[in-house]
């Protein structure tokens, strides 16, 4: 466990470092200075600005400075929104995005698993076909299409929910629904197929033979084993939810991190793009790491400190 943990941890740090380095040099390879705008500034001001943002130093020095600032969790100032730092923007946007992402994940996991279990128990029945059709539809409809559809139906045609912003639970319903359909569908399909596989196992037959109640068989014996594949996709699902927040926050005008990110892309505000990318990547890599560890804890058959069985 320990050696595996350390190995995984080091790999995580290396991946993160690669992302930071890659992002940094990509961003700095864009031709032109961020201050080259239509409004021509005085040469002296230009110089001062570049000095302020350390853009006059050689690239490798800037890189070193950026890394050492990162170690102090400082992502630097924004170029386009002066007097704001990337940290401040993230501090404001992240709680909102986290809330959105967290509720979405919960909804997706709960509803997806329920659909999957029901479908597996009614294998090849009407319910099975119905829920799997819903699942394929959920995978096929992009989240921004789902969002526009929900707005059109539940906010414009039948004004049940408000269209935009993030101020009350009522405001949260549509964005969460729009974001959750895709992941829900993926979880439903996975749960169904792994439940079907588990239900044919001998220990399930034994449990039935013992006369256990169906509820106990499903929840205590089948589900626990069927959940493993679902756990493995949680990391990549979190990634898709995260990128999904970009469009969802844009559509619903939610003041989250995704909105800052998309704005910074359109403004070419490189420190913000860089900072948010690194922040996002760090979260995702951490998620993948935790999922890996959780997997080992949930399934004792998988020995994390595997000694290369050959």
């Amino acid at each position, binding site marked *: 466990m320990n050696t595996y943990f350390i190995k995984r941890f080091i790999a995580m740090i290396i991946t993160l470092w690669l992302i930071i380095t890659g992002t940094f040099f990509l961003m700095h390879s*864009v031709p032109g200075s961020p201050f080259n705008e239509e409004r021509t500034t005085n040469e002296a001001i230009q110089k001062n600005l570049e000095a302020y943002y350390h853009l006059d130093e050689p690239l490798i020095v800037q890189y070193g400075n950026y890394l050492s600032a990162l170690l102090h969790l400082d992502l630097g100032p924004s170029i386009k929104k002066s007097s704001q730092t990337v940290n401040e923007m993230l501090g404001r946007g992240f709680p909102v995005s986290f809330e959105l992402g967290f509720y979405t994940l919960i909804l997706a996991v709960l509803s997806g698993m329920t659909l999957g279990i029901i479908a597996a128990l009614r294998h090849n029945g009407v319910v099975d076909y119905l829920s799997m059709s819903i699942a394929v539809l959920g995978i096929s409809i992009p989240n921004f299409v789902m969002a526009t559809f929900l707005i059109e139906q539940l906010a414009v045609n039948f004004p049940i929910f408000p269209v935009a912003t993030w101020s009350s639970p009522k405001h949260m319903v549509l964005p969460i629904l729009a974001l959750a359909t895709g992941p829900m569908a993926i979880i439903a399909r996975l749960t169904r197929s792994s439940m*079907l596989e588990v239900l044919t196992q001998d220990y399930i037959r034994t449990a039935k033979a013992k006369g256990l109640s169906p509820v106990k068989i499903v929840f205590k014996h089948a589900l626990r084993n069927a959940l493993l594949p679902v756990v493995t996709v949680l990391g990549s699902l979190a990634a898709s939810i995260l990128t999904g927040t970009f469009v969802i926050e844009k559509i619903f005008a939610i003041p989250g991190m995704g909105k800052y990110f998309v704005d910074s892309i359109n403004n070419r505000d490189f420190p913000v793009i860089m900072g948010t990318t690194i922040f996002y990547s760090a979260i995702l890599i951490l998620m993948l790491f935790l999922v890996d560890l959780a997997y080992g804890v949930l399934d004792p058959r998988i020995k994390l400190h595997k000694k290369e069985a050959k």
Partner: protein
Amino acid sequence: MELRKQEERNISPDIPDEWFVPKVQNQSEAEAVVRPSLSYWKDSWYRLLKNKLAMAGMAFLILLAIFAIFGPIISPHSVETQKLTSQNLPPSSEYWFGTDDLGRDVFTRTAYGARISLFVGLVAALIDFIIGVVYGGIAGYKGGKTDNLMMRFVEILYGLPYLLVVILVMVVIGPGLTTIILALSITGWVGMARIVRGQVLQIKNYEFVLASKTFGTKTGRIIRKNLLPNTMGPIIVQMTLTIPSAIFAEAFLSFIGLGIQAPHASWGVMANDGLSTILSGYWWRLFFPTLFISLTMFAFNVLGDGLQDALDPKLRR
């Protein structure tokens, strides 16, 4: 005793015993194959034909391809011509899908968007296929240290959030069709490489590969002739699932303003334009592009599912 024997032999009283003649067993006849033998591909094809949903998806995709190729040609309107006298017209016999706020024909633009989507999806899948097969093939076939090193690299790339990388690349090299495809291919091939490598690792130990080796076949030829044909099933499935994700990525990027730029039409661009008019009731501007995105993704997904069932019946349920 005598009576029972009599009863046994006389199965039906109307048929005399003489009619019952033992069948002459002919060795060659017994071993003759009655049903024509089916190759793996034929067998899979018949199985796919029976899957109605997958066939419906395939039919839709064929129609979509026809629409993409001939739609802009048969339409009397061009993609980019703006006609400010006919803004936001609802669907009619003149404008089949209506017009947008600059008086452009939505039908032509949707067909043009189909071209872009299919092109992005197919080219991205093709690039993923080439890189993934070569990389995964070499890693799986060489094994050992080479494999270890190559897969380390893949693991790192695999840990990167796909759309985030794509967005970054788009920011750096600027929006456009070629950049979208380039950005999608940078990390897109990783999934394919993993699948091919896993398959090759498994198959390279089979006897026919060993036989091939004993004949002194060169590595490249073994990979091409022995290993790849036997990994084609999962590769095809992976490709059919890559296409919708590439199409989604293009629409997503265009939607947030990083993809195809005006005056070109893409479903994502059209959906983004249409979104702002949602309150004014010009439903056709949002409806047609989003309908086509969803139907196309749906068709590719069900076809991919169907292919998976058809090519790997063991996994079928």
